[in-house]
């Protein structure tokens, strides 16, 4: 069941866009669907990141959805419970709740398009969600944008961002990582530069590694790193190798610049946003067209 749907038709790009609320448990999820004007070729679900990275990648995911709809794909985007426009409480968000919401969104796409899900895209933390959904539904293709490879590493970076910001703020006294962990344990939440990390999410993710979520990867996997540090390359190559050993055809994309998270993006010419924008969307679209059917390109 859904409520409050609104549709916009874009004849110039041969697509229509539908915004609505649908239900995950007793909470409303906000969903946004990009549909081709003709019959859709395949269904694609986009699993966003959360917290600081939710906004950072929002427009890029929107553009990917539009581009794919113009190519004949039905694309579902959504906000998890406890995030964005959806109902629910941020304190209750966990890896399991994110997965459940993604499955609900995937089902909603199947209902509206009449097609099973063929591919899942996951950005940053959304990669964990996408990997789980892909394994559960047995899709053809999985696309991981700058995936978080290790939950512990993610929180380490978040806490480091807070410590660095405190360091440069003369009115704040930097807290150690241990102190921040204690605050999380005692109060159930910790503030990282205006974003609240709740204990439920932390505990559901901190011991998780993406590689372990890919025990049964889809036949086709695309990993797109943002930035080219040795650490990141190594962790992604490890994930790619694991998927390949498990039978997937894996492609490693390339986006030259890192995406600064938590601390935001610099305003200057040639900023990272403009680089990663086109570098991520177009190769991903080309790869999806190749993997899910070249004929869709000619629509």
């Amino acid at each position, binding site marked *: 069941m859904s409520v409050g749907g609104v549709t916009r038709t874009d004849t110039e790009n041969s697509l229509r866009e539908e915004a609505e609320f649908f239900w995950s448990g007793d909470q409303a999820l906000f969903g946004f669907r990009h549909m081709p004007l003709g019959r859709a070729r395949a269904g694609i679900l986009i699993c966003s990141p959360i917290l600081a990275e939710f906004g950072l990648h929002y427009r890029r995911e929107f553009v990917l959805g539009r581009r794919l709809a113009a190519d004949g794909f039905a694309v579902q985007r959504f906000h998890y419970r406890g995030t964005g426009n959806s109902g629910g409480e941020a304190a209750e968000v966990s890896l399991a709740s994110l997965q459940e919401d993604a499955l609900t969104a995937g089902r909603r796409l199947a209902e509206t398009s009449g097609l099973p899900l063929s591919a899942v895209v996951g950005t940053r933390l959304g990669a964990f969600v996408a990997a789980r959904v892909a394994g559960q539904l047995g899709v053809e293709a999985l696309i991981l944008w700058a995936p978080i490879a290790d939950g512990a590493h993610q929180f380490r970076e978040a806490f*480091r961002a807070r410590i*660095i910001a405190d*360091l*440069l703020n003369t009115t704040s006294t930097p807290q*150690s990582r241990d102190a921040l962990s204690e605050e999380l344990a005692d109060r159930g939440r910790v503030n990282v530069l205006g974003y609240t990390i709740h204990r439920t999410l932390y505990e559901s993710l901190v011991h998780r590694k993406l590689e372990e979520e890919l025990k049964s990867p889809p036949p086709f996997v695309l990993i797109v790193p943002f930035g080219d540090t*040795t650490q990141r390359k190594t962790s992604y190559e490890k994930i790619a190798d694991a998927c390949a050993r498990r039978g997937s055809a894996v492609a490693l994309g390339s986006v030259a610049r890192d995406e*600064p998270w938590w601390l935001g993006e*610099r305003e200057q010419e040639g900023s990272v946003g403009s680089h990663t924008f086109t570098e991520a969307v177009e190769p991903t679209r080309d790869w999806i067209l190749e993997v899910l059917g070249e004929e869709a390109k000619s629509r």
Partner: protein
Amino acid sequence: MIENTIRSFIVDELNANGSSERLADDYPLLDRGVLDSLGLFQLVNFLEDEFGVEVQDEELIPQNFGTVRDIARLVQAKRADVT
């Protein structure tokens, strides 16, 4: 030379104003705003990646990141620890 590698990163990657020649070893990076929070965050990641060291949270203090020389000293000390 560690100082030059650090300096190049700050000028080229963090787009600090001015040339690497002007960014002297003792130029105050934090006090003059050459390194903001994002820049410092990226610099720490760069140091870890480039020099194979791990910067501990308690090492994130002005004394270690105040100048290019301070940063180089920290890296050298950590590399000495590793070896």
